[in-house]
């Protein structure tokens, strides 16, 4: 997030797009709902599903899956046409405005409406609500990124925010909500194919030299590695032979999961380190039992860049080890001794090589989390980014065009499928499906569909249905829900016995290699 969760209560307008906040980030939703109820903020919700947050919205925009760019470009068209943008901000802090203007000129509300299905009048109204607020925030989630145009979707939101002077101000910003608890930290720490910790590129010789000196090694690889979503096909094609997985379950979470399982079976060595024997663990040559976060010390970094302590509450179950110990012992056996006595010692090393974390210490974290960048021990941390200038100096507008999703409904597969999470479950269910309360509220996979679709297909609430895509099929019970809109079905991906990712499309965004989980085409029949 460019800004912080607490600032949401001070936004005058909040645009929530591609985020089912009430279920996926409930405590953020609480802040948004408080802004509406107690501070009179105007909430705009744009989502293919009529999710719970809509009850609090001044305006609900129901765009077809995969048409966010057209919708946002349409809003920008109105804002520029009616001179509602922040001209001073655009002049002083941004560049490439003319190109943006040219691109969005073609997105009249009528055309944007044709593509997105949102009435032109609503696009106009949304543009005015957003642009006329003193400060407005944009909140988004996987509904924006899990598309073949995910990168472009994010750019178009950044364009909108800069156009109205909402970046670098309290209560504004472009705010992605991270799905899993330490996704931010995994990225910050260099759990990516192209960067070391702190986003220092592996292709940068100076960065490599620095790491080589810190780690006491020579010739670190200078080539950019493959992303997860590219590793799986490479494994399938026999181009990679060994894989060491910590805490992931691709046999369930991967797009086109059947394909992922076949690929994993080709590996000469698959090591899976986890707290339970997952679907992926069952395919492994070696399974290593890890400790949960309640059983070890460390830090997590949340979606607003806040680094906070993880503390050992109970000892690890006998036989399990914290992941840092397992990695250390493995490394030592491979001839590179790692002899850290505690996670704090590792954190001290992280601080030395990662400028944005340099000022954070365990001692300081006793009083609560600190938001990076935090370059020195005297620095209070950074509540919102880009305050007086962007990292690159001027904020650059990157105009983008609408592109259809990789797969659209047709005569054979007439319905849109979109996937996501439920309030009561989490990811592949490894943790959440073991809590009696969560299971009681969400015991099984339900295919959420609109009454109109169900009626047409002769399906009653609770009926078993077969959902089929070009890649596979699953069987689950139907749930007729007012959240669903005719033409689109929704399936949560937590349930191994009805794995939604047998259906989804592995088509990737060309830049950030995120699969298009949020749109594919399916047919539904009574089973």
């Amino acid at each position, binding site marked *: 997030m460019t800004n912080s969760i607490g600032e949401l209560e001070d936004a005058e307008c909040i645009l929530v797009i591609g985020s089912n906040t009430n279920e996926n980030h409930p405590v953020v939703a609480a802040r948004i709902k408080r802004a509406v109820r107690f501070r009179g903020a105007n909430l705009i919700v744009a989502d293919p599903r009529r999710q719970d947050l809509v009850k609090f919205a001044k305006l609900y925009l129901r765009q077809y899956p995969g048409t966010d760019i057209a919708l946002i470009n349409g809003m920008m068209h109105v804002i520029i046409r009616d001179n509602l943008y922040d001209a001073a901000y655009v002049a002083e802090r941004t560049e490439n405005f003319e190109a943006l203007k040219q691109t969005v000129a073609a997105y009249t509300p009528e055309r944007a409406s044709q593509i997105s299905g949102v009435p032109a009048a609503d696009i106009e109204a949304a543009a005015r609500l957003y642009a006329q607020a003193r400060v407005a925030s944009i909140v988004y989630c996987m509904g924006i990124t899990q598309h073949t145009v995910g990168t472009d979707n994010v750019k178009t939101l950044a364009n909108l925010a800069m156009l109205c002077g909402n970046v670098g101000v309290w209560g504004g910003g472009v705010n992605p909500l991270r799905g899993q608890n330490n996704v931010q930290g995994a990225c910050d720490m260099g759990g990516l194919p192209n960067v070391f910790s702190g986003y220092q590129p*592996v292709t940068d010789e100076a960065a490599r030299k620095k790491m080589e000196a810190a780690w006491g090694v020579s010739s670190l690889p200078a080539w950019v590695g493959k992303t997860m979503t590219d*590793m799986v096909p490479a494994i399938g094609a026999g181009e990679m032979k060994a894989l060491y997985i910590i805490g*992931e379950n691709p046999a369930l979470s991967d797009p086109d999961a059947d394909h992922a399982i076949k690929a994993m079976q080709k590996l000469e060595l698959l090591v899976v380190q986890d707290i339970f*024997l997952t679907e992926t*663990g069952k395919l492994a040559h*070696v*399974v290593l039992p890890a400790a*949960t976060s309640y059983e070890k010390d460390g830090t997590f970094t949340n979606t607003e860049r806040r680094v906070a302590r993880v503390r050992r509450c109970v000892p690890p179950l006998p036989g399990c080890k914290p992941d840092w110990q397992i990695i250390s012992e493995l490394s030592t056996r491979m001839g590179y001794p790692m002899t850290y006595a505690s996670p704090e010692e590792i954190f001290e090393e992280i601080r030395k090589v990662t400028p944005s974390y340099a000022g954070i210490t365990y001692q300081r974290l006793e009083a609560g989390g600190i938001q990076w960048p935090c370059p020195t021990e005297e620095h209070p941390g950074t509540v919102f980014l880009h305050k007086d200038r962007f990292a690159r100096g001027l904020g650059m507008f990157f105009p983008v065009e609408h592109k259809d999703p990789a797969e659209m409904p047709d005569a054979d597969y007439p319905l849109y499928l979109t996937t996501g999470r439920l309030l009561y479950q989490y990811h592949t269910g490894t943790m959440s499906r073991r809590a009696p309360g969560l299971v009681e*509220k969400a015991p099984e996979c339900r295919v959420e569909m609109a009454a109109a679709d169900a009626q047409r297909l002769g399906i009653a609430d609770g009926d078993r249905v077969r959902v089929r895509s070009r890649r596979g099929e699953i069987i689950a019970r139907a749930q007729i829900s007012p959240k669903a809109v005719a033409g689109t079905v929704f399936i949560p991906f937590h349930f191994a016995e009805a794995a939604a990712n047998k259906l989804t499309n592995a088509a990737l965004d060309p830049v950030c290699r995120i699969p298009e989980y949020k749109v594919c085409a399916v047919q539904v029949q009574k089973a």
Partner: protein
Amino acid sequence: MAETTLTLNGQTVAFQPGQTILEVARGAGVEIPTLCWMKDTLPTGSCRVCVVEVEGARTLLPACATQAAANQVIMTESPRVAAARRMVLELALASGNHNCLICEANGECELQALAYRYQVPFPAFATPPDQPYYFEDNNSMIVRDFSKCIMCGRCVRGCCERQVNDAIAIGYRGSHNKIVAKADKTYIESDCVFCGECVQSCPVGALLDKNALGRGRAWERTPVRTTCPYCGVGCQLEVQVKDDRIVKISGADLEPNHGRLCVKGRFGWHYVHHPERLTTPLLRKNGELTPVSWEEALDFVAGRLKDLKEKYGPEQIGGWCSARITNEENYLMQKFMRAVIGTNHVDHCARL
């Protein structure tokens, strides 16, 4: 902003216009007891425990709902105030079955603490009425025991103002009033989303975390502050531990959640103590995953990685970090893959 002063228990105290007497007193380090007051919600002044004596005022005034005014002369513990508080507490104790001996809240109950502070005797007229109190135990997370409810309304404000879930309200006006979920149904049949805010808000033992029942009282548990393992909001938790087991989890009053949690953070911890947890390394032997020692498992992995690196080169080896392990562990994993194996095929599930 213009500062003004008033007199609090004989001391001159400065305040900002708009502050309540309660806020001024707390700012000055003077503790005024409260029951129905709760942070981040609108004060209602309904419990009347926080009454104070203001010179010139005909009645005692609730400190939480009365604005401070210039030159007010306020007494927070005068005999008149203490008598009024004692009366309020006695009525609250008489309104239900407040048997502290077997109550879950014993030791952390705010009513109990105030009864002790003001030495309120157990009310002689407190006999259980003929009508049994409402009791609800039909879900696996929250128990509602209205024999303890003092109608302070904190659960309702927690639900509707702190979480804005709007699942409960005060129903049946007058002497029949009671906290009701939609249409007076049970929680599990209502719109309740089991965030548990109401449980955390309850100052007595009327709303209880079912998992914690009988598993230790306040003084037997150790609180540990940590970060929620589920979503990226990173709520700060206070984990109550006894005998190396998690008893229950509450929200800590820190950014970003300030006490709030969702159902996963509060009620989703059972996996930690689950019997299906892996507790021994497994190695595939004759096609079967077979329990082995750590020595054997780690030797095998190290040996195989070395062999495969030699045979195919580091470009054919990949490693996945994880959104579910700590920063320290992610850092170490990428260091291991890059410095020891020599590959940049490092990624994690940010994309999924």
